[in-house]
């Protein structure tokens, strides 16, 4: 019998505040696509860093093809045949694909050889990459392919992928899966880190579930349901969302002809954005990040008050040039995607953080009454089940999910006419995500208009009544969620919608690829 490719036993890693891994066992067979499933903070990243040699465990042993090994550094891991593709790319934008790959290799190899090898590997695994193109001209999916090709050039026996689909359109995800299956058939083991249940069930042969740093399950994902997997992952099933109401009111937000040149050189120009949000409905905006979401949010929230006259109307009033505080008084509230440092000041207490958007408790001349601040914070903590050290706890002492509950709660509690939420459950554990989504639906049922921007399509399909797609600073026509399909939205995400821009045509096929 061949020994397992990788076997970890009794892995333990203690950080000052948390026990990240506790007695973790993991067994990966040759040619196996092995999922590691867990919520944010379950210890997945720490475990991968241990395998890749970036972090040393406090206890436990590691066997590689039956031999006991100690991986002291990522370089040592690569020597063994372990490659890792991180969630965030590490590519130089101004260099070409081949140059980027070349950087990580020995100096003795010629650039032309590298380009040829890239062509071979790309062809063998169906990863279309043109070695001569500068990286900045590539789409996100193409950049990820470059990262994978770079990892494959070393002929790894184990490939680690950390949340690889978070930046991909559904079509690109399908393509990635084809490649990964082909790799596994060739005998490469794959460790696939994710919290997306559907993907794991579609792709992986085996699944190890982590919760709170410990292994809580070893299952065959193809035989599990989403519900049973999520039970293993969070210890409970997420609460089912209530049926949607279909009462729809007057138009609360009307955006018309909103064009804005970028402020930041790396930003996106908004081009002729137009849509409306009615009272009692949730409109979702889908799109791959970096397609103008940030810029649109800034123009709507008032952080960027340069909108053309008449392009942003709130209940018939032109608010496009008003500051955030004035828009808030008119009933427009906003939850930004960054919690720490934007939605809340990390070092200030929860009570003080209510002051960012809630000024109702202020006395004459802007007098701050600490008692009233604290009572507002206590009310939010109770109503939205925020686990914290009380109203005086610093915002940064809360977990991501609890802080998000607090921030979303702070805005919901203000009884807005229009609530704009960016990434409502980004990096939030499943329990908190369910609570937040439930609260958003309840707010809609109470007659508020909601605009939700998210990169998670599942979430948008679950929450929204109508969907829009933003691509390259343009917005698609709206489609009722009942008529939308993942395929269609996926196509729109690459700009293929009426009035959108098609993606830039790929360069002609390089001649050498034909021979490879």
């Amino acid at each position, binding site marked *: 019998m061949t020994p397992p490719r990788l076997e970890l036993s009794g892995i333990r890693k*203690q950080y*000052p505040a948390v026990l990240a891994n506790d007695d973790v066992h993991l067994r990966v067979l040759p040619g196996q696509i092995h999922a590691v499933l867990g919520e944010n903070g379950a210890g997945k990243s720490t475990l991968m860093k241990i395998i890749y040699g970036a972090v040393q465990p406090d206890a436990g042993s590691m066997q590689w093809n039956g031999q006991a090994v100690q991986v002291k550094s990522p370089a040592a891991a690569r020597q063994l045949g372990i490659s890792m593709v991180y969630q965030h790319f590490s590519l130089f934008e101004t260099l070409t694909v081949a140059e980027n790959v070349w950087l990580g290799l020995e100096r003795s190899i010629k650039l032309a050889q590298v380009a040829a090898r890239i062509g071979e590997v790309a062809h063998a695994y169906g990863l279309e990459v043109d070695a001569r193109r500068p990286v900045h001209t590539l789409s996100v999916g193409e950049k990820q392919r470059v990262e994978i090709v770079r990892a494959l050039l070393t002929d790894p026996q184990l490939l680690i992928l950390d949340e690889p689909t978070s930046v991909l359109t559904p079509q690109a995800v399908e393509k990635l899966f084809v490649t990964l299956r082909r790799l596994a058939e060739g005998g490469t083991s794959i460790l696939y880190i994710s919290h997306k249940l559907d993907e794991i069930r579609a792709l992986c042969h085996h699944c190890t579930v982590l919760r709170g740093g410990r292994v809580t399950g070893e299952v065959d994902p193809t035989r599990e349901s989403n519900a049973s997997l999520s039970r293993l992952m969070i210890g409970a099933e997420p609460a089912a969302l209530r049926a949607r109401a279909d009462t729809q009111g007057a138009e609360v937000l009307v955006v018309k002809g909103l064009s804005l040149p970028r402020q930041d050189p790396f930003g996106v120009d908004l081009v002729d954005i137009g849509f409306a949000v009615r009272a009692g409905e949730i409109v979702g905006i889908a799109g791959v990040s970096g397609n103008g979401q940030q810029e649109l949010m800034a123009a709507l929230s008032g952080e960027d008050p340069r909108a053309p006259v008449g392009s942003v109307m709130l209940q018939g009033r032109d608010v496009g040039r008003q500051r955030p505080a004035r828009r808030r008084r008119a009933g427009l509230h906003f939850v930004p995607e960054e919690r720490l440092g934007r939605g809340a000041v990390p070092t200030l207490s929860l009570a003080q953080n209510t002051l960012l958007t809630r000024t109702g408790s202020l006395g004459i001349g802007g007098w701050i009454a600490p008692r009233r601040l604290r009572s507002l914070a206590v009310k939010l903590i109770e109503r939205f089940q925020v686990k914290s050290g009380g109203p005086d706890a610093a915002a940064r002492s809360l977990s991501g999910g609890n802080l998000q509950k607090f921030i979303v709660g702070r805005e919901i509690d203000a009884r807005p006419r229009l609530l704009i939420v960016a990434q409502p459950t980004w990096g939030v554990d499943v329990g908190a995500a369910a609570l937040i989504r439930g609260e958003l639906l309840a707010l809609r049922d109470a007659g508020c208009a909601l605009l939700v921007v998210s990169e998670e399509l599942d979430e948008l399909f679950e929450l929204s009544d109508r969907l829009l797609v933003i691509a390259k600073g343009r917005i698609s026509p709206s489609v009722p969620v009942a008529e939308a399909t993942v395929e269609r939205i996926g196509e729109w995400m690459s700009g293929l919608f009426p009035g959108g821009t098609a993606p830039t045509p790929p360069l002609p096929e390089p001649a050498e690829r034909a021979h490879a």
Partner: protein
Amino acid sequence: MLRLEPRPQPSRALSLLSPLLALAVTVAVGVLLFALLGKDPLRALQMFFVEPVKSLYALSELSVKATPLVLIALGLALCFRANVWNIGAEGQFVLGAIAAGWVALQAGPEPAWLGRGIVIAILVAGVLGGMLWAAIVALLRERFNANEILVSLMLVYVAILLLSYLVYGPWKDPKGYNFPQTIVFDAVTKLPRLAPRLRANVGSLIALLCVAATWVFMFRLYRGFALQVGGLAPLAARYAGFSAGGALWTSLLISGGLAGLAGAIETIGPLGQLTPHVPVGYGFAAIIVAFVGRLHPVGIVFSAVLMSMFYIGGELAQSRMGLPKALTGVFQGLLLFALLACDTLIHYRVRFGADRFAR
């Protein structure tokens, strides 16, 4: 082996203890220094820590030194909390002194209708002078994004040269034997003293009022809150809709005004005339005062008193023990160094030996 390990939560106890620890380290290094210089360390320490508080007279002198430090440091604390790095308080102090001096020179022995009210006019002039100098910094920063650290520092030298020009030129006392100084201001412009024969004056009371006012502004007023959010998390300030320009102007005007007030108090208090020696470094020492006082109004009072003891102790050590005057600066610098080092302990704990879990 000594190792630093991050704490899960910053330690509250140590954030209060750290200034005391820093003082202890400063004293220890001081003792070593005196011993190396061949002086009696105990006697030297006495100069710094006993003599300045020994008598009512000594305390009065202490208050004269501490008053400008408190006033300037209050304004700086506000700036630093707003992430505006005004390090040119010395220049704003000098401009305050010049403006105050100009009004005092106009007064004459019997000011037309103001009477003793001229003192208030002089103090207001000082505030406006300091504000004007700080406003230049704010304007250049807002219009041209000019770095406020450089601009405010450079303006210190402009202010000092302006003062020199005035006292060497147009404002020179014609009967002053060509010394670079203005006439001694008329008695009516003098800041009232707290007791006869003591130099302590109402300036100290004004400073304490400003301490209370700054505390209220920082911790009880929405404007003060908005200012500090801008310093702590600029994106959160943008999200909340607090204007960055507003924070820049508010903090610089308040800080310039307070430094100018300190300059005016110094001019019509202990000095009584303008000379090229008006700037003695209060504006720079106040930076240390502000940080040692934890950018907190009450903490600033304590640290200003401590710094004043160093000033007076340094002079005494020079006159009575023949130690160099530079010692004052050495002590002040040591204290800030030690404080910054001790602050590490707020976020980290020291561990001895190797990693607990290492194999």
